[in-house]
């Protein structure tokens, strides 16, 4: 995402004054200046470049806009209707009943709490683990590529595949996790998924296993962007290795942290695939119900489309709450 910010910055930069002259034809001639999108469109249509560029981006844009923005608007309208069972929804009588119903429902509150726990725990631990691994990989090790490839490997697997692996890892009788606990003194084997207290932490741990490699890649790119002189200067100043990283290097990784956080949270919101694949049903293990699974179950198992649509919209708002500040931050700092 950092690249994205950089591009957008350049895009805007091209409209401003550059070192020599204002290069790109970003500004429109004054004499044809009008206001409003219609006037802008008219001006653009007069521009042969614009007309010739339309076949390139317009089909893609229309397809994307229909499925993304069209669908969200439709989903929002649907969430304002009332439940109708199998019939078609009545769009003439719109209200927020479904949202009220959600907030007063135990299962919704429970799923919301689980969603936040998952978001926060998964993101935080992935960030820390990824940073530590990145720093280790960055210390001029041999076979760096091999290590990096192995750490990132789980990320290339489908949620369905990793769910099968972890199902076995957490097996009560012969799972690796329990075998490991068995070796430790004073700890008993645990029924991971059938204990509602432990199911969610177990899922979070598996997700961290799968995605901390991603954080490592992002941090590694951030570390590589820091000039060697900074390490050397810290050395010359007499900082220990730990202090050097803590006080000189880590503060410079703010950008990496922010973009990794945003992407991890988006991953976490998509954790439905993993939870679904653990059981192969819309009903996940007790204690692991998140908004994504609740929504899917209400819609495609129970047929409560209006209610599910409302949950979908709230998930969207949640994602917006994560992404919008990020994009605004990028925009404010002149990068968008």
């Amino acid at each position, binding site marked *: 995402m950092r*690249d994205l910010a950089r591009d957008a910055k350049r895009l805007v930069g091209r409209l401003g004054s550059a070192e020599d002259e204002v290069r790109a034809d970003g500004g429109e001639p004054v004499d044809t200046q009008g206001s409003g999108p219609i006037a802008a469109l008219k001006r653009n249509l007069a521009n042969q470049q614009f007309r010739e560029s339309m076949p390139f981006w317009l089909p893609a844009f229309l397809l994307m*806009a229909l499925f993304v923005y069209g669908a*969200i608007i439709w989903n929002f309208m649907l969430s304002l209707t009332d439940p109708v069972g199998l019939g078609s929804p009545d769009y003439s009588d719109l209200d927020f009943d479904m949202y009220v119903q959600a907030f007063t429902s135990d299962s919704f509150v429970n799923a919301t709490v689980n969603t936040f726990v998952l978001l926060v725990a998964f993101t935080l631990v992935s960030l820390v683990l990824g940073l530590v691994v990145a720093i280790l990989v960055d210390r001029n090790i041999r076979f760096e590529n091999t290590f990096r490839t192995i750490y990132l*490997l789980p990320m290339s697997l*489908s949620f369905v595949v990793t769910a099968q692996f972890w199902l076995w890892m957490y097996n009560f009788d012969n*799972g690796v996790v329990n075998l490991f606990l068995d070796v430790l003194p004073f700890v008993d084997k645990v029924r991971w998924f059938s204990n509602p207290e432990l199911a969610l932490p177990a899922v979070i741990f598996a997700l961290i296993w799968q995605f901390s490699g991603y954080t490592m890649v992002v941090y590694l790119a951030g570390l590589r962007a820091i000039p060697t002189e900074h390490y050397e200067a810290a050395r010359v100043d007499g900082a220990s290795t730990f202090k050097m990283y803590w006080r000189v290097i880590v503060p410079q990784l703010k950008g990496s942290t922010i973009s990794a956080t*945003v992407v991890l949270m988006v991953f976490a919101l998509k954790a439905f*695939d993993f939870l*679904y694949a653990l059981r192969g049903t819309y009903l996940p293990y007790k204690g692991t119900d998140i908004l994504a699974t609740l929504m899917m179950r209400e819609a495609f198992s129970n047929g409560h489309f209006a209610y599910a649509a409302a949950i979908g919209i709230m998930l*969207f708002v949640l994602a917006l709450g994560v992404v919008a500040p990020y994009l605004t931050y990028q925009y404010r700092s002149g990068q968008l």
Partner: protein
Amino acid sequence: MSTETVTPEETDVGVDTERVALYAVLGGLVAFYLLPIETGLMTSLKADPFSSAPFLPPVEQFTTAKYARAFDALGHGFVNSFLLTIPATVLSALMGSMAAYGLTNVDWKGQVGILALFIAGIFIPYQAVLIPVSKFWGSIVPLETWFEPVWLLTPGIEQYHFNVLELIITHVAYGLPICTLLFRTFYLDLNDEMIEAARLDGASIARIYRRLILPLSGPMFAVVLIYQFTQIWNDVLFALVLVGSGDGAMVTVVLAQLGNNLSSVGIGLKMAGAFLTALPTLLVYIFFGEQFAEGIAT
């Protein structure tokens, strides 16, 4: 690069112990990241997964029978997944490349706005669009109903192929934002003057794409194709809702249900199925790891 560059490590006094500890930790991490996969692999080759510690290799229990059974169960899903993934990957990459070109290398007012809409599309949770999408294909544009005569009369074309077609279009639509962004980062680094030179040489916008941009996009196509292939192959959500189980089921959907009606002995079958399902993406990852890393790091 100067060979004189002194790395912080080389100046360390306690080089040996520190390095040993470093490699020990790195090795421990290798075990952490590989153990679930290795365990799965070993288990898939055992007749009885409970006969020994799960991560130990099979000795007397060695069998490939689980793979044979998993392949029977997943084979059709495999074909469907390829039928979906290849066209959807190629189409989304190509359209993304074209869109990025039209929004980057051709100057017109308002690009930023269009681009912002593309970028925001990367972040939407699919649960927020899933019901409309399923209704869209179910009742507004029901391709399988429209093309009923085609699949009734043409041998080799089945009803579910049109569900797969719907899924292809859906994946292209939701893959476009990230594809466009990836290509855009690449196209921004192209020399503007080169494109201007081509304009002065008399090439139209379309000819510039065909003769300059497309041939130069090779490296980015590798990144985008690999990224999209992995994403689409691995998807469960859309495959489940738009196609579901049955003849058209994707391999991931079949795998999610595989062995669930068996006792825990079916675990070996699950592991074998998981490996078969992961095989295409694993191969892609092993051979094109660099491009994969570049794709996700953007």
